[in-house]
């Protein structure tokens, strides 16, 4: 079935938003919309057309227990040891496993040296598990290279910040990832020590969205956009 035939896509997107599609067709279109911008756009346009119809529903107050329950879910998780637990990080890590394996195989295949590469690699993926950035460093080098795998373009008044997530304790900033008008390019961050040491006991990295100049508090303040586990190839 060709979903991308414009007429067919239009009809499917309309029925997706209206809600009449079967579970299977719904799931399929859902998946496609994450991979394909024209599918996502068609759905969004139909949402803009149809969802204002919901405005005519007479409002109904939910029971008073809903708000405290939401707060519990939001806070409970924030307060438990680290803010990162609630950010879907660990779920993201599992999902990113495949992407990581893929990136590793690419790095291994393209590595020209005969000796095993003494490298740290991190594939940073979003909540949708799509890899967005790959960070890598030589174990003995003091430079961490961050390369975008997709177009990464923060709003003009925001900047991306890279964090080391220790198993315990607060995240530590590794530096800012400035983007140009055409998006994030290759960024090299200096490490205070050889990577093997500087990132010792760090299981994962994450990227948050921060005000220009970086987090004012020294801890992430904005949403975490990407995260991934550190793979050590040595």
């Amino acid at each position, binding site marked *: 079935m060709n979903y991308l035939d414009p007429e067919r896509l*239009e*009809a499917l997107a*309309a*029925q997706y*938003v*209206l*809600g*009449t*599609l*079967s*579970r299977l067709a*719904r799931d399929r279109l859902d998946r496609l919309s994450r991979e394909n911008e024209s599918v996502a756009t068609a759905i*969004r*346009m139909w*949402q*803009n*057309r*149809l*969802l*204002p*119809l*919901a*405005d*005519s*529903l*007479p*409002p*109904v*107050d*939910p*029971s008073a*227990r*809903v*708000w405290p*329950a*939401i707060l519990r*879910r*939001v806070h409970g998780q924030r307060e438990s040891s680290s803010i990162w637990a*609630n*950010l*879907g990080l660990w779920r993201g890590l599992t999902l990113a496993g495949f992407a990581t394996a893929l990136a590793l195989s690419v790095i291994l295949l393209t590595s020209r040296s005969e000796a095993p590469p003494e490298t740290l690699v991190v594939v940073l993926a979003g*909540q949708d598990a799509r890899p967005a950035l790959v960070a890598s460093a030589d174990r003995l080098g003091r430079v961490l290279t961050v390369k975008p795998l997709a177009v990464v373009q923060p709003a003009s008044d925001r900047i991306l910040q890279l964090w080391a997530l220790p198993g315990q304790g607060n995240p530590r900033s590794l530096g800012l990832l400035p983007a140009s008008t055409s998006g994030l390019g290759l960024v090299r961050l200096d490490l205070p020590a050889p990577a093997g040491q500087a990132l010792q006991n760090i299981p994962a990295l994450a990227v948050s*969205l921060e005000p220009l100049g970086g987090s004012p508090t020294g801890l992430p*303040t*904005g*949403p975490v*956009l990407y995260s991934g586990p550190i793979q050590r190839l040595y």
Partner: protein
Amino acid sequence: MALDPEKQRQRSAILADLLARVTLFDQQAFAELYRLTSSHLYAVALRILRESGAAEEVLQESYVNIWHHAGSYVAAKSQPLTWLTSIVRNRCLDQMRRREVDTVTIDDEEQGMMLADDRPTPMDLLLSSADALAVKGCVELLEAGQKQAIALAFYQGLSHSELARHLRQPLGTVKSWVRRGLERLKACLDGAGLER
């Protein structure tokens, strides 16, 4: 929540600002966002799921999701309330489609109950929203069957096969009502320059 266009613009500006602050984990903004939108979003969920426990659960999940993903709202592309509504509706519809596999959702008795309660029917809602949105002309262009099928699908979350059972029509007829109705609505709305 039917508002005149000026009030709607003001509401959108307020909600967009709150969403931007929620992106930075501003709890006060989150509480205000809940205060302003929860009764609307709950009404959407309750209509589709028809059960307060399930609707409250979806509402909770939706706001937790909004807390984490407010950053993915792109102001230029949709109204904030449209974006928020889509989060709740998607969850409701996913649940409905999952349920459908197990049971037939509406039997005759339930249908009687739906008609007996004093809430506005889906058709009333469709027509009154058409008033509010000044797209009355577009909804009125639809034939009776198209109107009914679209109203039931939109407000009650019925699938094609549920619509067919509910309206006692062959599946093919219902599908074509929905398809043609949507095509007409689109042509009319886009033509009227109302597409946002």
